[in-house]
C-alpha cells in the first residue's frame, strides 16, 4: 500500500496542467490486470481520471521517457518520480541528457513496489491483487483468495531500498524519507565468499539464460547512447544474438563497465529481465568496489558530481591489490 493516494497525484497533475505549468504528464497507466502498469503520457484531467494508476506495481523508472519527452517540445513536462527514480534523473542531468528547465518533477514517496513474478510463484490465474491489513490479497481463478506477506512479494530492489529520500524534485507530495542503511551488498558479499569455481558456475548458469533481448539495456537509465556499441557493426563487438557463451559474458561485462560510476542501482535491469538474471549483482559489485576502493559514491545523489572512474588520486590502489582485496573480504 502506498502512503500517498492516487487522487492526490491526479489532483496535483490536473492542477499543473490547468495552470499551464506543464502540458504533459508522465505517469502510470492501468493495464488489463492489477499488475501490468504501463508508463504513459497524459495531457488532460479526463485521461488522468480514467486511466492513471498509482499502486504497488508502479515500479517503472521514467528516465527514458523524460529524456524523450524533454526533447520533443519546448514546453514543460511533468513527471512523478519516486526516490530511486530521482537518482537516475540527476545522473541524466549530469550527463546533459536533457534540459532541467523542461521538466517539472513531483516527488512521490514510495513504500516499495511488488514483484508480480514473485506473486505468480504462489498464485495462478490472478483476477485481482488488493491489500488488506497490510497483507497482499490475491484473488485467483482456481484457489480463491490467497494472502501473502508483503515482504515476501516485495521487489528485490525495494527490499534492499537504498533511499527513501528524493535527490531532486520541484515539489514533493507527502513526507520526505531518509537515506537508508541498505543491505544491498549482502548478496555480492555472498558471491565474493565463494570459490572462483563456484562463482564461475553461478554466473555461467545465470548468464547462459540470456537471450540478448536488450531489455536490460533499453530500460537502463544510464544506457542512453545514441548508438550502442553492441548495435554498431563498426564497433567490432556487435552481436545481435548470442552465439557463444563468451558473448553473454562480453555483453554483460562491458555493459556493466559502461555504467560504472553512472549506475544508480535503480534495479530496472533485473526487474525487466525476462530470464530473471540477477543483473543488479554485476552493477552492485562495481558500486561496492568503488565504495571500497575510492570512497563512498552514489551516482545521481547530486547533479554534476564526478564519477570515480573518471577521476583518480595518486595513491589509488593497484589492480592487483583490488583483486586481493576482494579476496580478503571473502
Amino acid at each position, binding site marked *: 500500500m502506498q502512503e500517498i493516494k492516487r487522487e492526490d497525484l491526479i489532483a496535483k497533475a490536473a492542477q499543473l496542467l490547468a495552470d499551464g505549468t506543464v502540458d504533459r504528464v508522465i505517469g502510470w*497507466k492501468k*493495464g*488489463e*490486470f492489477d499488475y*501490468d*502498469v*504501463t*508508463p*504513459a*503520457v497524459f495531457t488532460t484531467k479526463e485521461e488522468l481520471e480514467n486511466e492513471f494508476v498509482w499502486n504497488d506495481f508502479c515500479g*517503472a523508472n521514467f528516465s*527514458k*521517457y523524460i529524456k524523450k519527452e524533454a526533447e520533443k517540445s519546448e514546453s514543460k513536462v511533468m513527471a512523478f518520480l519516486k526516490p530511486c527514480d530521482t537518482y537516475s534523473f540527476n545522473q541524466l542531468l549530469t550527463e546533459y541528457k536533457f534540459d532541467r528547465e523542461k521538466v517539472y518533477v513531483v516527488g512521490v514517496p514510495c513504500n516499495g513496489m511488488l514483484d508480480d513474478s514473485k506473486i*505468480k510463484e504462489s498464485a*495462478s*490465474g*490472478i*483476477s485481482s491483487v488488493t491489500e488488506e491489513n497490510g497483507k497482499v490479497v490475491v484473488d485467483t*481463478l*482456481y484457489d480463491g483468495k490467497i494472502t501473502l506477506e508483503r515482504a515476501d512479494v516485495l521487489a528485490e530492489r525495494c527490499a534492499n531500498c537504498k533511499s527513501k529520500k528524493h535527490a531532486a524534485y520541484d515539489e514533493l507530495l507527502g513526507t520526505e524519507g531518509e537515506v537508508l542503511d541498505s543491505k544491498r551488498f549482502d548478496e555480492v558479499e555472498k558471491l565474493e565468499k565463494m570459490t572462483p569455481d563456484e562463482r564461475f558456475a553461478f554466473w555461467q548458469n545465470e548468464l547462459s*539464460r540470456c*537471450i*540478448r*533481448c*536488450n*531489455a536490460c*539495456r*533499453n*530500460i537502463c537509465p544510464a544506457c542512453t547512447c545514441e548508438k550502442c556499441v553492441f*548495435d554498431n557493426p563498426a564497433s567490432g563487438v556487435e552481436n*545481435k*544474438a*548470442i*552465439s557463444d557463451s563468451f558473448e553473454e559474458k562480453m555483453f554483460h561485462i562491458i555493459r556493466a563497465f559502461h555504467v560504472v560510476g553512472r549506475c544508480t542501482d535503480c534495479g*530496472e535491469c533485473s*526487474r*525487466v529481465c*525476462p*530470464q*530473471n*538474471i540477477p543483473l543488479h549483482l554485476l552493477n552492485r559489485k562495481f558500486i561496492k568496489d568503488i565504495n571500497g576502493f575510492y570512497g563512498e559514491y552514489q551516482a545521481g545523489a547530486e547533479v554534476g558530481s564526478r564519477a570515480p572512474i573518471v577521476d583518480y588520486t595518486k595513491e589509488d590502489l593497484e589492480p592487483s591489490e583490488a583483486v586481493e582485496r576482494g579476496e580478503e573480504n571473502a
Partner: protein
Amino acid sequence: MRKISLDKLDQLFAEISSKSALYIPVDTAAGAKFEKYDGTKKMSDALNTVRSAKDFFFPQTENLVDFKVEGKTIEIKETVKEDEDFVVFGVRACDVKSFEILDRVFLADPVDNFYKNRRDHGIIVSMACTRPAETCFCQTFGIDATAPAGDIECHKTTDAVYLEAKTDKGAKLLKSLNALTEDADASAVEAQKAQTKEVFKKLPLAGLDASAFGDGKTNEFFNAPEWKTLSESCLGCGTCTFVCPTCQCYDIKDFNTGHEVKRFRCWDSCMYSDFTRMAHGNPRLTQVERFRQRFMHKLVYYPTNNEGIFGCVGCGRCMAKCPINMNIVKVMKKLGGNK
C-alpha cells in the same frame, strides 16, 4: 487412447530417451524451461515455458555455412547435417499451433532446409491445459487448449497421463511404448476437458475478439493515429519477439573466428532500429513504425498472406514479459474496438 499412471511416467521418459533425445519442461529458478531428459529430471506442472518451443525448429542462432580463407583462396564448408530424431514432450496447444504458423513461412517455397530437417525429425507430444492463466487468450484465435493435437496429444489428470496419437509419426512412437501403457477410453478425459472449457469462458480475456483484424485490413489500420500513443511507452527491446512462439524474423551475419568465417543466422526483432536496415537506413524510421510492424504482421499481414490465419496464438508470453507491459491485447482492444 492409451494411458499411463503418473508414477510410471519416469519409465516412459526413460524408454523414449533410450531411443532418441527427449525434451521435457522442467522447473528452474527462472521459470519452466525445456531441457533434455537425463533420467532424473521431473516434468514441470507450469502452464508454459518462459521461452517458447520454437527453439527446437528455429533456434536463436544457427550456423549456415563456414568459409575458410587460406592465403588468397576461399573454401566453403556446408554445415547442414541430417538431424537425429527427437521428441518434445509437454507442448501446449498454443505452441503446437505456432509450428503451423512457422511452417507456412519456412516450408513454403523456397523451403528452409535447416528448419525442414528439424521439423522432419521432431515428434511433438502435446499436453492439454487445465489451468489457463489470466493472460491466456488462445481461444481468441480459435485454439482449443483442451485439444492441443501435435503428433501425440496428452491429457494429464490427477493420477495418469492419457495419450492419443494424432499423426502417423505419433502412432509409431506411441506403439513403441505399448509395453508401458494401457488402453484407455477417450471419455476418461472428457469431464476434465469440459471443466477446463468452463474455466476458459471465465478468463478475463475471454471476450477478446480478433474479428476486426485479418485478411485485407491493411488500409484500415495502417494509418491509425492510435499507433503513436500505443507505441509511446515501447522501449524498443526485443523481449516480446524473443519469447514469442511465432516471431520468425532473422538476420544473417558473419563472424570471423580468425581462422574461418562463420555465416550464421540469428533471431532478429522488428523492434530494433537496425531491423531490415538497408543501405539507405531502416525503412521504419521511428519506434512508431517498428511497433506497428509487429502487430500489423501478426494481425493483418500474416492473415492476408495465409488464408486469414492470425500470426498470434495467444500464449500470453509477451504480456508476462514486456518490461513496460505493452502488448498485443492492449493493441487489439484499442484498435479493434474491444471493450
